[in-house]
């Protein structure tokens, strides 16, 4: 017993004696994170339980702000638009990004140019991007001129001013940018696949579809979870492109939860209700991402 006990005691003592430097390395980030991230987040949650105009003292209203959301039509529109946005923006950029990556993965002459060209939009600020697209969408802009040139003059539209099309018109510049980003993520994933697997598959006579189903797709699993997290987070925080093109208008038709939150906070100065909206966005993002990642990584083990 004594013989067995001795090393255990020693080990416990060794564990208790953490080097001060290490302690510092842990504690400092915790304090910084706590002060700059968790404390404001908690404050935001507290504000969501109040009515606050940004100047006077906040007045506590309990869950009143959350109750108001249930009967708020604009919140409904914004939530629905956000779902549309996640499905279209997320779906198209994931599928399109993967498609482009597969297309541009093979080494051919000039492939570097295409990769660079598709990635270029990522480096522009979205605000600059939307300014350019705003011009493209103008009543006498490129889109309408092209439509007229190919004989589809009847399809001409004030794309950003029509509540039927505004949301989709804003979605396109966002996609234009996101596709290149997702493509690069997938390209990196494809580069990591061992070519020997494909050689073996070819020897066994697998078609390219079979190669994709049985080699590429399973091998891309970890990239997929990254892409999915990135897409959901990016969709929920999409703001700049909508704000700089339509401000959520005309009459809230292109409103997303993020733009509605901003407008409520800084235009209507209803910071309590805006904080409640922020909490909803946070719960959505965090909830989806965490459940997915936990599941994904548990399966990996």
């Amino acid at each position: 017993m004594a013989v067995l006990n001795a090393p255990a005691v020693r080990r416990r003592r060794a564990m208790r004696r953490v080097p001060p430097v290490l302690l510092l390395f842990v504690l400092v980030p915790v304090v910084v994170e706590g002060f700059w991230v968790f404390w404001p987040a908690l404050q935001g949650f507290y504000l969501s339980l109040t009515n606050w105009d940004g100047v006077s003292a906040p007045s506590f209203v309990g869950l009143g702000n959350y109750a108001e959301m249930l009967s708020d039509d604009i919140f409904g529109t914004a939530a629905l638009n956000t779902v549309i946005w996640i499905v279209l923006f997320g779906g198209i950029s994931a599928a399109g990004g993967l498609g482009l990556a597969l297309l541009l993965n093979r080494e051919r002459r000039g492939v570097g140019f295409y990769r660079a060209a598709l990635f270029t939009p990522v480096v522009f600020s979205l605000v600059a991007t939307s300014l350019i697209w705003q011009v493209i969408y103008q009543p006498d802009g490129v889109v309408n001129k092209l439509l007229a040139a190919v004989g589809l003059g009847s399809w001409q539209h004030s794309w950003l001013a029509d509540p039927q099309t505004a949301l989709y018109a804003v979605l396109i510049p966002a996609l234009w940018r996101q596709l290149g980003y997702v493509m690069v993520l997938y390209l990196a994933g494809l580069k990591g696949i061992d070519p020997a697997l494909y050689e073996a598959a070819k020897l066994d006579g697998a078609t390219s579809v079979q190669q994709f189903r049985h080699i590429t797709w399973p091998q891309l699993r970890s990239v997929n979870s990254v892409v999915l997290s990135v897409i959901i987070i990016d969709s929920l925080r999409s703001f700049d492109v909508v704000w700089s093109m339509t401000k959520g208008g005309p009459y809230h038709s292109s409103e997303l939860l993020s733009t509605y939150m901003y407008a409520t906070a800084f235009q209507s100065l209803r910071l309590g209700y805006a904080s409640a909206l922020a909490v909803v966005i946070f719960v959505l993002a965090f909830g989806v991402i965490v459940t997915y990642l936990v599941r994904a990584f548990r399966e990996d083990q």
Partner: protein
Amino acid sequence: MTSAAGLSRRHFLRNTGLAGLGVLGSSSFLAACATSVSSGPVKQAAGAVTVQSNLSSPQAKVAIEALAKAFGDKGGAQATVNTVASETFRTQLPSYLTAANPPDSYTWYPGSLLSGYARKGLLLDVGDVWQTMGNYSQAFRTLSGDGAGHQVFVPTTYYWWGFFYRKSNFAKWGVQPPKSWSEFLTLCETLKGKGIAPIGLGAGGTTPWTASAWFDYLNIRINGAPFHRQLLAGQQRFDDPKVKRIFDPWRQALPYFDPNGTALAFQDATTVLLQGRTGMVLTGTFFADAAPKDALDDLDFFQFPILDPSVPTAEEGPTDGFFASARTPHVAEVKEWFKYVATAESQELYIKNSSGTVLPANPAAKDSGTPLVQKGRKMLADAKELTQFFNRDSSDALQPTADAALIRFIQKPNELDSILADWQTAAQKVWLS
């Protein structure tokens, strides 16, 4: 101690002087000096008044900087201008004012937002500055009060709204500015017949607020300025039959609106007007900031037609000026600065450096003297009442509710009842919070 202060003062003056030269001269020179002004000497010249400015259009920025320089050159207190994009300025204003160490003075306009801040004790009482401003009209005095007997604002300039058009185009089309609503509609019909969109709007993109000018004018023409103010202050309802009534004449004019009116931002609407693709635009003189200099002489305007002669004529005459934070550590310097901007001399300097289409608030100051400005000044002087603008008479918080409602009306005039009901609901949330 004194020698150090003297040195720093001299150092400061030299730098501001250089910066002033830089504004006039080469841009690289400007960049070098501008940084030296904002980083180095500001700290040393402890008495400098900081002026937080949202005047970011090039001409206005030059004008206010010239004003600060001339103020500094008088040898008393100094002022440094800090120009911020107006969207940032607006959203940051509550944080500026509640900060422990706020900027000293701010460009702004009077209105309900101002009196709201004043009620919370955030604005400096500048009553003693007003004692040196004896020649100002009673209207400006009332406008600059907080409603509780304190003066919290110093007006410097104001401007007018009207239907602006190009004289050469009207001559080319053989039309005259109208004198009544029916003449106005006839004019629109004539222009439409010539293939021109009669009325430009500019309520697209991020400037939907321009549509509020129509709402304001129809309301003050039909229901009068007092009702308009009550409505915007939350004492009347947007679904009131009196409000509903003002959309009848608007409906008559709607077929003559540029179909792209809600798709083009007002800067683009200005361009389209100058190119002669629209006939006229109801706008304020600020649009001239974006017009090329040679087009300025060709511009003219006519008054929004009278709809009901029994209603006392009111016009929109938005006023701009300055207020200060109650927590400023430089009370004496701020008041010196305010006394200066209230003088005829400083307002003339400002007008000379800007596009020249604004009017000085000081009755002794000369405006730029062009026929256009004379005409605008006379129109405002003849008005029985002045209103500010939708967001100034109500608040910036209420403006988005108007934007949503009015753009929807322009696009779907048949949904008026539900538009007004929704507007009232949205406005109520703003008033209650």
